[in-house]
């Protein structure tokens, strides 16, 4: 019987929430990697039992964890796939070293700091893991300070795709409130050579040659917090999403503004429409309806909680501009949580499921495309990321 597996990263560990296709009763397991920040956990579409997790700590740095059995057991890649009793895990899966070799073409060592001065690139953590659509051993990692890394050996070794940092605008990139992070990696399912990434605060970028060369795709964005509001880079893009059937159509939740492109990012237009506020972090697309988009409006960049204390998901069935509030089952008073950029996901069942997690530790699920919601769990640590796997 088909089912779903919801992968939740939190400030103090990871949790796996599992259900059958009814999505009414849930098994909760965790915390995994208790006490560590789990920025992101995602499964491979090529092998649903292959999961990757970014485990990180301000004290001890970055660890990459991998499971080959759907999350039952985990290992740090580089050694045996499973731990032998009495033996420690092996590997150097946490070795993320920026490419500064002359062979990479344009080694780049500084970006813009908060005060406008130049600052050296310093690796801090992996924000997002995006497994290949076809190879369970291949994964992209978006990191802070912003760069894109790739593994082809299941996470054992990581190599920077240095063409992104080296393409020329890097000295103009600057950190947002959460740091200078590459937080979004979107793979075009119709074109294995096309990759989109988003960086706070630099903007969106596209590669058409499997990550070797990149160009900014920010025309149409307008940001008041940079000297030139329509500059080529410097925009704080919070999240982008696409539907597999229309890979040239992308939706963006920017720092402020919800945007849409119909030409793979060459130009964007605003589709915020009647949203109560167009600030927010998450954005996602219905798995079966390419015109249906979800956002969670947040009051402002200064006040990271829902307007009026009402937690509302907004759904547009018209690719933006016209939005409806989805409130059934969500708190409509005294709610002051945030929903972070990687904390929404959709399953591909029928009717489709929508999931999101909050900084208050709730993970909400809708088994009817957002019409109504129920909390799967209410009291986890602050949720950093939510992904879902639809299992056969």
């Amino acid at each position, binding site marked *: 019987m088909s089912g779903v597996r919801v992968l939740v990263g939190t400030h103090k560990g990871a949790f796996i929430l599992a259900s059958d296709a009814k999505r009414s009763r849930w098994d909760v397991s965790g915390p995994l990697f208790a006490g560590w920040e789990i920025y992101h956990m995602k499964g491979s579409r090529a092998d649903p039992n292959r999961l990757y997790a970014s485990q990180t700590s301000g004290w001890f740095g970055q660890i990459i964890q991998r499971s080959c059995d759907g999350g039952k057991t985990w290992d740090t890649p580089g050694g045996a796939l499973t731990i032998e009793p009495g033996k*420690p895990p092996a590997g*150097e899966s*946490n070795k993320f070293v920026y490419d500064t070799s002359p062979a990479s073409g344009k080694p780049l060592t500084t970006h813009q700091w908060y005060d406008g001065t130049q600052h050296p690139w310093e690796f801090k953590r992996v924000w997002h893991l995006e497994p290949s659509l076809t190879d369970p051993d291949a994964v992209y990692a978006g990191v802070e300070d912003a760069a894109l890394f790739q593994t082809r050996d299941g996470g054992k070794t990581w190599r920077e795709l240095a063409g992104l940092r080296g393409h020329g605008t890097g000295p103009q990139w600057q950190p947002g409130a959460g740091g200078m992070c590459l937080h979004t990696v979107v793979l075009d399912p119709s074109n294995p050579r096309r990759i989109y990434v988003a960086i706070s605060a630099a903007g969106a970028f596209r590669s058409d040659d499997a990550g070797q060369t990149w160009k900014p795709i920010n025309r149409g964005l307008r940001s008041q917090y940079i000297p030139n509001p329509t500059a080529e880079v410097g925009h704080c893009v919070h999240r982008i999403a696409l539907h597999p059937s229309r890979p040239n159509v992308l939706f963006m939740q920017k720092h402020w503004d919800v945007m849409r492109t119909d030409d793979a990012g060459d130009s964007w237009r605003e589709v915020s429409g009647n949203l109560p506020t167009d600030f927010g972090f998450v954005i996602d697309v219905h798995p079966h309806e390419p015109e249906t988009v979800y956002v969670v409006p947040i009051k402002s960049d200064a006040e990271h909680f829902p307007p009026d204390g009402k937690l509302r998901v907004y759904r547009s069935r018209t690719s933006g501009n016209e939005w409806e509030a989805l409130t059934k089952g969500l708190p409509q008073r005294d709610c002051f949580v945030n929903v972070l950029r990687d904390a929404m996901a959709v399953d591909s069942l029928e009717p489709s499921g929508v999931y999101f997690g909050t900084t208050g530790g709730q993970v909400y699920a809708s088994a009817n495309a957002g019409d109504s919601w129920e909390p799967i769990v209410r009291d986890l640590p602050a949720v950093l990321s939510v992904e879902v796997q639809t299992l056969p």
Partner: protein
Amino acid sequence: MIRVVLPPHLRALARVHGEVTLDVPGPVTRGSVLDALEGRYPVLRGTIRDHVTEQRRPFLRFFACARDLTHEPPDAALPDAVASGTEPFLVIGAIAGG
């Protein structure tokens, strides 16, 4: 044998309980102890000192024999009591929240 006490998160990562005991060939220094530790538990590489520069991670400190050895050179000899196994070498996560 050299005794090393790791902070709880690193014990969990290395899947050890209590103190770690290590054979350290040659002079007993912070560098040689960490070399032996990482050799035995490769998962700890990068968690105490940087992969490339081998600089101490900023929020970690090293104590032994009631002394703060954090800012001693990595090739300085550790106290005799550590070298003899009488006292442990402590890797400490700085108290900066948690």
